[in-house]
């Protein structure tokens, strides 16, 4: 049981080091590693190889800690920013049931953000710092949330494709070597399945509807298909983090492997809807037993990643505004708690 409680061990050099590092602009400077004991490193790798979970208070290489802080916080930010494109449709959902479902889904995303910030905090960084990094534009979040949701069908396409791609990425993370992250992912994956199915259900209803509704569904698929494929990250040949993450069992499959699996799962689902995947080069390769898809426009991905997507400014602006607008609530709650404590002490 003690293994869950690592974050109170604040005297270790690693904790202080992490704080100092990330205060200087959020850059995890792997090059400035502390000299580490080779025996500890060997023992750590042996534990990872034996599929043992690493817990917060266990010794870990500084680069492992930094990689996890980066990955878990980006993931948390994505959940929080991901509430925005869908929140856009809460007041305009077509029925009361759809509205209730959408509220529940957006609330789940907030919850996922909370689980993940909590997991990141076990690595010795505070949530306040992570949120600062996001609001200052120094942290990344998934590029997918910088696309707009102009129609109701976009809400269907997000659930089906974006949450579908997220599940594909997240299921292997349930076996991640870092205990708190793996446990958060198990919880998240249970809930994501509802997200994907409600999205497909929206698409199904539109696809079986009037010609205008079918067109709306097709256009949403056209908008979200390629950005969804980009969600898996750069191709393996260009991915900076893959090799080490695989060795540390943070990552179980490469970006391209997961992307391929997603295409193979999703193409038949689109066919069932009677919708066309917007890729003229898409074909079934019977010999390989998988789909071949056209080449991805990585310049678009990089452009969005660098802040020039359709909604980057709007999304961060909304987060900053919410953070500022909520300031008095946070302060009032803290003042109320202090007053209650003082009264109880008197």
């Amino acid at each position, binding site marked *: 049981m*003690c293994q869950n*409680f690592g974050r*109170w061990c604040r005297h270790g050099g690693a904790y202080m080091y992490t704080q100092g590092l990330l205060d200087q602009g959020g850059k995890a400077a792997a090059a400035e590693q502390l000299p580490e004991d080779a025996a500890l490193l060997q023992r750590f790798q042996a534990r990872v190889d034996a599929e043992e979970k690493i817990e917060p208070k266990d010794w870990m290489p500084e680069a492992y800690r930094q990689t996890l802080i980066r990955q878990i916080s980006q993931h948390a930010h994505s959940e929080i920013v991901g509430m925005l494109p869908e929140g856009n449709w809460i007041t305009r959902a077509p029925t009361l049931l759809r509205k209730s479902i959408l509220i529940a889904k957006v609330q789940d995303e907030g919850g996922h953000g*909370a689980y993940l910030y909590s997991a990141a905090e076990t690595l010795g960084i505070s949530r306040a710092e992570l949120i600062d990094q996001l609001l200052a534009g120094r942290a990344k979040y998934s590029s997918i949330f910088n696309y707009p949701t102009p129609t109701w069908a976009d809400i269907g396409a997000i659930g089906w494709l974006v949450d579908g791609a997220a599940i594909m990425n997240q299921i292997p993370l349930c076996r991640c070597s870092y205990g708190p992250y793996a446990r958060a992912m198990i919880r998240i994956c249970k*809930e994501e399945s509802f997200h994907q199915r409600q999205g497909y259900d929206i698409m199904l209803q539109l696809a079986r509807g009037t010609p205008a509704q079918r067109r709306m569904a097709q256009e949403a698929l056209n908008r979200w298909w390629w950005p969804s494929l980009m969600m898996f990250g750069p191709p393996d040949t260009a991915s900076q983090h893959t090799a080490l993450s695989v060795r540390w069992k943070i990552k179980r499959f490469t970006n391209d492997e997961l992307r391929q699996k997603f295409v193979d799962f999703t193409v038949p689902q689109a066919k069932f809807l009677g919708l066309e995947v917007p890729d003229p080069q898409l074909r079934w390769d019977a010999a390989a037993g998988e789909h071949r898809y056209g080449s991805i426009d990585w310049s678009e991905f990089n452009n969005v990643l660098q802040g020039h997507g359709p909604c980057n400014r709007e999304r961060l602006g909304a987060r900053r505004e919410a953070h500022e607008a909520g300031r008095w609530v946070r302060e009032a*709650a*803290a003042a109320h708690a202090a007053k209650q404590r003082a009264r109880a002490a008197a």
Partner: protein
Amino acid sequence: MSEARDWPLYEIFIRARGGLDHKHVGSVHAADASMAIEHARDVYTRRLEGVSIWVVRSADIVASDPAESDALFEPARDKIYRHPTFYDIPKEVETL
């Protein structure tokens, strides 16, 4: 440092059903204990995952050190006679 900038952290324990133990599920930030219970309700029991919540200030938990886990737990390893299966009882002896 984080306390000044954020509400304190609480560890959350949930009893899934009557008759079961409270089990650690994660943590939340909250201004005080009653807010921690409300946040835990919203964050950890949206799908009937619990019937009771405990919250404990994270700073109040004292944990054993994994570096000392051998010293703590190793002595139990060779005391196999503490388990019932250590004893070979003849088949003829029943209900033992």
